């Protein structure tokens, strides 16, 4: 929540661009990112068609990591969180964290509910 007071002071540099820093990446970065995303996607789908891999213990973690990776890349570069005011980072990661924890907790609770006291 609390972002650094340094920023809170300086007034609008450029009201129109919302004072956001102009040095966004350009085409050169964007197409590379696109390629990476595509490659990862192909990798995921490819993995899906290897029965032995699907059966193996690494399958699920791998897919989760891969999609997590895509998630981060898009957020960092296409949503240029990497270059923007760190306030935005706080506004996004805070809720994202709570959301993730809540989701995990829910799955845990519904997975756990078979273990109950008493017989059966």
């Amino acid at each position, binding site marked *: 929540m609390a972002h650094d007071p340094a920023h809170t002071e300086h007034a*609008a540099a450029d009201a129109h661009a919302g*004072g956001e820093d102009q040095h966004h990446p350009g085409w050169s970065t964007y197409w590379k990112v696109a390629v990476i995303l595509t490659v990862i996607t192909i990798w995921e789908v490819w993995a899906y068609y290897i029965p032995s891999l699907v059966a193996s213990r690494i399958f699920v973690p791998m*897919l989760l990591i891969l999609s997590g990776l895509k998630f981060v890349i898009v957020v960092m570069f*296409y949503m240029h969180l990497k270059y923007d005011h760190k306030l*935005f980072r706080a506004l996004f990661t805070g809720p994202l964290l709570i959301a993730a924890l809540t989701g995990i907790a*829910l799955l845990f609770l519904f997975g756990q509910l078979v273990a109950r006291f008493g017989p059966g």
Partner: protein
Amino acid sequence: MSAPAAHHYTTTGLDSRKIAIWAFIGSECMLFISLISTYLIYKGRSIVGPFPHEEWTSPDGRHFEPILDIPITSASTFVLLMSSLAMVLALAAVQNKNLPKRTRGDRILGSSKLWLWMTALLGATFLGFQAYEFTSFVHEGLTLSTNLFGSSFFTLTGFHGAHVTAGVIWLVSLLAIDYRRGLGPADALNVDIAALYWHFVDVVWIVIFTVVYLIE
């Protein structure tokens, strides 16, 4: 579009609308985590088929294949990813409207209309895929009310689809403005906000594609 408080003093120097959209996106995280969690909680709890990844034969002997169609969905996923690329290019084009365009490449990259069109069309294509998917599921006997899987699947992906639809409408509105008076650096923020929303819808799909379609 109007610029609320844009030319007033702001503490951070940032435009209020951009702060608002990020807060909105944060809130959307909770929305989609609830939907996704529900889908996962109900996974494998349906009493009757059809099922996402397993085949099923109904008591009256009708046979159902695993219902999810990975190739099609992979394609639509790719389409949505590409729409994000188009979106960032559209934003860049708007921001650099006034920069001189020397090469033909510059002109192509510099055309906000082209890239906005691209984004909207790719988004529409994605929706097309989804419409196809939904109808074929219904034909194969999976509806909202067939089983827990049907309910949670259609609601989750439907919510995402609704977000994409809203995004497409938003983009078309921007295009309308672009045609009426042209979008320039002054509008960069409006486009930026639309873009943030669009990319977020994209990352949500990235997660859905993995946990719903690929992981069995």
